[in-house]
């Protein structure tokens, strides 16, 4: 199946989800669905660098927040429609991703991970001290009730949901295309053995820069509509622990070597989190706690995620 066909299917599945949501007639579905899809995008974007290349990024929240804060900035300077803001977020986060990659990709393993964490701290400190985008007080963005698209009047949350749905389809198609391309093979050699990759002619630094840029840009796109969704953006929510943790946990629980792993992980964990938020009131930290526990369980019993479990089962069945 080629990329165009896959994109078509992804688009069609998206339409089905939308039709289903309409049939349900529950506004909360769009509200919850937006968050889950946002995590699908974050998890898939993280996986391009973390899963395909093996470079663990602890700074996902920073890229997400950069997208969100570039929207706040644009809102004050020159208001644009949300799809355009997503492109702005992509450019800003993509550039920062490239810069981070250039500065840190000579580091490996834990050292790289620590550097990304440091980036998040530095950026958060910058934002907290930058009054124009609200500083530590945060910034209000009044979300319109509805938006007119042609002659159609659409609920604004539904509009954001559709945008995130389209973005998720784009990001998943990109990830899958990479996986089966020369680029994907190159990424896998970086994960396996960089020295051997260089000896085989793979330009590892260039490939890693492509990965950090792409991964950062997609995270920025996921963050750009966030201020409109939440209405009030403050540094501690944009740079929240749950973004960094979920972006890592979801691909790891689903499986990091294929595009479907982050999708499964984000749907499962995202839904579980929405459920607990809605039905069990145990305090604010409970979501991250649940993710932490599940992640520990998976790291011990299924280090290759759900996809890895299934693959192993298939391999055993074929052998016997």
């Amino acid at each position, binding site marked *: 199946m080629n990329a165009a066909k896959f994109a078509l299917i992804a688009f069609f599945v998206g339409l089905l989800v939308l039709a289903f949501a309409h049939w349900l007639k529950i506004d909360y579905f769009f509200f919850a669905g937006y968050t889950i899809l946002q995590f699908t995008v974050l998890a898939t974007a993280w996986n391009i660098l973390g899963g395909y290349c093996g470079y663990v990024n602890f700074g996902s929240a920073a890229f997400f927040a950069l997208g969100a804060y570039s929207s706040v900035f644009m809102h004050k300077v020159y208001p644009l429609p949300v799809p355009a803001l997503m492109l702005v977020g992509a450019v800003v986060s993509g550039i920062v991703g490239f810069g981070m990659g250039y500065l840190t990709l000579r580091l490996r393993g834990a050292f790289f991970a620590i550097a990304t964490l440091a980036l998040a701290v530095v950026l958060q400190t910058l934002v907290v001290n930058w009054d124009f985008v609200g500083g530590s007080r945060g910034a209000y963005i009044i979300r319109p009730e509805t938006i007119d698209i042609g002659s159609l009047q659409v609920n604004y949350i539904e509009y954001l949901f559709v945008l995130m749905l389209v973005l998720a389809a784009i990001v998943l198609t990109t990830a899958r295309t990479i996986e089966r391309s020369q680029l994907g093979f*190159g990424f*896998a*050699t970086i994960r*396996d053995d960089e*020295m*051997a990759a260089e*000896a*085989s002619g793979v*330009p590892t630094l260039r490939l890693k820069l492509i990965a950090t840029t792409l991964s950062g840009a997609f995270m920025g796109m996921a963050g750009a509509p966030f201020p409109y969704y939440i209405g009030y953006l403050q540094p501690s929510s944009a740079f929240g622990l749950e973004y960094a943790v979920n972006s890592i946990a979801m691909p790891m629980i689903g499986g990091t070597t294929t595009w479907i792993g982050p999708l499964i992980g984000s749907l499962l964990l995202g839904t579980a989190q929405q459920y607990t938020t809605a039905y069990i009131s145990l305090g604010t930290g409970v979501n991250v706690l649940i993710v932490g526990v599940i992640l520990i369980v998976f790291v011990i019993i299924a280090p290759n995620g759900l996809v890895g479990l299934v693959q192993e089962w298939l391999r055993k069945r074929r052998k016997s």
Partner: protein
Amino acid sequence: MSALLHVDNISKRFGGFVALDGIELEVQAGERLGLIGPNGSGKSTLVNCICGTLQNETGNVTFDGHKLDGLAAHQRTHRGLARSFQLPRPFHSMSLADNLRIPLLYTVRAREGMLHAHSDLGARCHELLDMVGLAAKAQQMPRDLTQVEMRKLELARAMAAEPKLLIADEAMAGLSHSEIEDILALLVRLNERGITVILIEHIMSAVMSFSQRLAVLVSGRKVADGKPEDVVRDPEVVRAYLGQ
């Protein structure tokens, strides 16, 4: 005639330790050169400097008429330098066929600037695996291989890049007698196809039967270079290996 590889006055230190001290080495096109030396004499460091894995502090490497200074390892591979690693370093998440696909995609294709059809690539992978006798295991993973098969995969991957010069870094260490014969025969076959080979090895019988010329490193300096039978009688070489 100018040499295919010219190593000119290369030095490399690690902190206070001088690993290479002004090494001079020339290799002619089509030659079979043996490079020997006791453990820690700088053989692998020399290979790493030639291939761009390490940067030498002084001197330069000229390959096929071009200076390699400042080129990354992958660029040197594109120019026609290939190496196998002392400890095999396969891409462990890929099948054997895919292991060979990497240099085909990233080196051969980049060099020739043309697009191979996918079936073409597959056929080439198979051909290379056949050359080292691993064709039947094309779809298996590296972890399923024995030591000698792993060495063969390592050589096949180096060969997939269609190099002018192959540096085999201890491709035979730890192998049995018949396995050594196997690898030696393979290297001779490659040389007969016109590929220049530098063999780094401890097993003297293998080095002596393979090499047309022998160079000896001791403590980061080249102490001898010449016909194998003369070199092994050189007093300095004997002293380095046997002590006084």
